[in-house]
């Protein structure tokens, strides 16, 4: 009897000393989208490097996989990361069934009146605060007075990305008395680069010279289209060095660009991706895992990451900073200050965008 009890105690100790394990469930975009899923996974990998935890990833190929994948992950993990708005229902159904597992929802919010179980921490972003600047920058950089937008699916976070972008263009128009127009289209999917490319090409043909995508892996097609269109316009090969691309831009005083989303996508086509509107999904994932790992301090409920918390922002523009006049950056810095101070509120829906008015802003320089 004594031996059995000793073995049981040792077993309990051994089991309890196993490494903490985090499992991420991708949405249908899957890993390799160079966007949302990859960004979150980067945060998970960082957690492995810095916190010494075990990690695993489960790829969802269909929306119907979500529940089964979450259940599978919950059965052998300490913390499960659900990525993407479309996984919301599945997350809220599965989490209460596994009260001893902690769940992190990236870009997932409760529906109205819904109770959030205490084992879920949700991270949402004020995406519009990031894309406001991509819109402003696009309006300041366009030579055709037409910029484009390609969205994945019309779901709340993507709509917020779009609204921020259009608000940025509207702000530039109002402040500078210009008339930059936005062409917009939705691909209806996050995993279809071919459609993204086709839509981008159509917008370039309609006169747009800069296109922002908020379409996950579909947006990779938009970046491809910008590279092809830009290289062909400059008369350069698609592998031309960055210096040649910059020289060609100044020589022609025009070019074709894409704007990335979620993570820094500038590297995907240096010189052709003007900037990226980033939401720090990596930071949210890392932060979620760090707190879930602790006995206390798990950020249960809804956490909204904004510009002030550096939860959203623009990429550092490693390859294209030289294409934009310093005055534009100064203006954006001033606008950022107003947002952080709460003096400028960026619209998150069409109604707010309709009444968005910044014509009264005067730069102190």
């Amino acid at each position, binding site marked *: 009897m004594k031996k059995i009890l000793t073995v049981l*105690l040792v077993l309990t100790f051994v089991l309890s000393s196993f490494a903490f394990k985090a499992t991420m469930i991708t949405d249908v975009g899957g890993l390799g989208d160079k966007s949302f899923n990859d960004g979150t996974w980067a945060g998970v990998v960082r957690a492995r490097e810095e916190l010494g935890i075990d990690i695993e990833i489960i790829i969802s190929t269909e929306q119907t996989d979500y529940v089964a994948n979450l259940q599978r992950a919950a059965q052998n993990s300490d913390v499960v990361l659900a990525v993407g708005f479309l996984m919301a229902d599945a997350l809220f159904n599965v989490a209460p069934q596994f009260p001893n597992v902690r769940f992190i929802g990236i870009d997932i919010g409760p529906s109205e009146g819904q109770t959030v179980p205490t084992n879920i921490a949700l991270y949402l972003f004020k995406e519009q605060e990031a894309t406001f600047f991509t819109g402003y920058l696009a309006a300041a950089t366009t030579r055709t007075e037409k910029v484009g937008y390609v969205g994945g699916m019309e779901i709340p976070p993507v709509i917020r990305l779009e609204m921020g972008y259009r608000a940025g263009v509207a702000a530039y128009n*109002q402040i500078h008395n210009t008339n930059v127009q936005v062409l917009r289209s939705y691909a209806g999917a996050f995993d279809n680069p071919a459609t993204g490319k086709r839509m981008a090409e159509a917008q370039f043909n309609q006169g747009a010279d800069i296109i922002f995508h908020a379409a996950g892996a579909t947006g990779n097609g938009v970046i491809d289209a910008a590279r092809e269109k830009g290289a062909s316009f400059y008369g350069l090969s698609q592998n031309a060095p960055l210096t040649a691309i910059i020289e060609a831009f100044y020589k022609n005083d025009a070019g074709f660009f894409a704007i990335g989303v979620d993570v820094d996508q500038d590297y995907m086509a240096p010189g052709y991706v003007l900037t990226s509107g980033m939401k720090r999904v990596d930071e949210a994932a890392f932060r979620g895992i760090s707190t879930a790992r602790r006995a206390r301090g798990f950020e249960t409920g809804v956490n909204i990451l904004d510009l002030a918390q550096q939860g959203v922002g623009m990429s550092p523009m490693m390859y294209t900073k030289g294409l934009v006049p310093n005055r534009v950056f100064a203006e954006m810095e001033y606008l950022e200050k107003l947002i952080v101070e709460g003096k400028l509120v960026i619209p998150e829906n069409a109604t707010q965008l309709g009444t968005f008015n910044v014509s009264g802003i005067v730069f102190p320089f």
Partner: protein
Amino acid sequence: MKKLLLLSLLLIISITLLSFDVDLVKSHYKTFINEYEENNREEVLKVFFDEMDNLGLYRFYRNKMIGTAEFSDRPTSIQTYLSRIHQNMKFKSIEEEMAFSAFLVYVQSELSGTRMTLERLRSMPAHFTTVQKYIQEMQEDSLTYLGNVIAYSLGLVEDSPYKDIKKFPMNARLTSPSWYLYLDEPSDVFDELIKENKEEFEKMIEDLSKTRLTGSNLEFEIDGISEHFLTDLNYYANLNIENLRIFFIEESSKKFNFSLLRFLVYLIAGIIVFIFAKKYLKFYIIGLYGLEIIYFLFFFDISRDIISSFVYGSIIVLSVFLFGIITLLRVFSRNKNILQRLSDLFVFLGIVLILILPTYQIIDLTIDKTNEFKNTYFENQLLNDTIIYQHAKVNRHINVLKSLLGTEYSEINSFYSARTSRYIQDNINAGIFDSINIQSNNVRINLNRDGLLYSNVDFHRQSLENYSENIKRILRASKFREGFIENEVKDIKKEIENIFRYSDSDFRKKFNAEFDKFFAASDLLEGYKNDFESFKNDIEYSEKIPLNLYNTGHGTKILVIFFFSLILFIIFENKKFKFVTFIGMLFASFLMFIKPTYLDILSEVRYPIIYSSDYTSSLIVGLIMITLSLTIYFRRGGIRK
């Protein structure tokens, strides 16, 4: 032996720390179920029953005002509403609260006529929040207690509930010192746990003191030591909860669903008759038909007997639909005389009228007469659904309208501020405009004569063409948008009309307060304010609420008996059988003239039933049913064959 003692100690601690009496929870749970089954509305479940009535009323008003459709991508389930009742109740003890949270799952299962499951129990917000709250409190308490002792031993805090521990001072700081200060009275059970493991406990603290950890990393390690000694405690606490859940489910499944048993009896009897007494098969069918009518009359509970509802619902709906279509086609078929055509047309119209004519007019459930509904959570929920929530139809239409008006505003704004000013600027740059003087009532453009000469004609043409193109474009877009704006205004009015027809002055006032917020938030809607105001003022309040047969339990029974008889009448060729089913149709028709004392109204499937005692019922539907029965009998049954 020492290990055995340790395990026993952990078990005792977990039970003690759970801070609730498991037997008492079970006792409360049984009481709730008994009181619910006995419909005892005056004792422990008084508040619950009142809230359930309000829940029924809420769905009833909601369906009349905005329909049954949910416009959210994630619709609210009944679990959310039942959990809201839990939130609004005051409990005398954690045992009562825990039992009630599980009882709500029993109620949910009862309302949907299904069995209670572990999955449903775990996903009931009232239940999981109650359980998680107490488990969390227990964990917080134990972590703070042991954490305080460890921090005291490390010299990071000055006080501790247990001080008989070696000191291993370290030069570090805590990020969240409040997590390591236990402010309640010292606990014997924790002290005992420390004493039992003192050697190992002190060794782990000593090891930690030798590190250079500080801040949150140090806290992580302190909690890690605490957790090491508390792992089994958590395990036992969860085990207790799981055992309790199994009890909840077992207790709920004691009731047997006799309505299902009848199908088995029919099946066995049918097989016996078919094998051994085939010539009595018609009597078996007539007997089965009679038994089903008796079942429907006296035992059928539409909200709980999901199987019967599904079986009859699917069979009758499909059959009546097909019969109706065939009858309609016969109206236009060849070789029919006018009388046959007219009788077929009457049969078709009769079926349609039975289904669409309002049969009952409810007087005592209009919103002005249900005072108990006023100022409750569910009245507020009704307000959310009708206007406050973003997916509420009125809210969505107003937002679309605002968006259209906003687009119109910014387009016009952009035309004047950007395109017109650019036109002027271009003319200035081209040396045509010299200067522009604007005074209060006078705008004067000073022109350069040279710029107006024919030598500049290309510029003039291009400039005017661009400007006129801009004007045309903005006019085209504005006219196009006008249609959408008008449609949105119409849709808003249509929605408000439906809502106001069933809203008393009090609810209208609350609705208007929310409606006015849209106007206060934006001056874009200002132009429509008076129009909406006068429209709202003209909507008459309905003193009675019309209901169709199928909206009530009584009416549904009549419908099922009538159409069940009708279908069997058509299927079976035997004259005697046709006569029996014809009597069945007449019987159902005559039931229409009997007015029950209480009319059971289905607020919505899986939601509580509400009752009306003051209502009127129309005789027209009953008369149509009688005439229809006679027409069908003489047209397709008795005389002809």
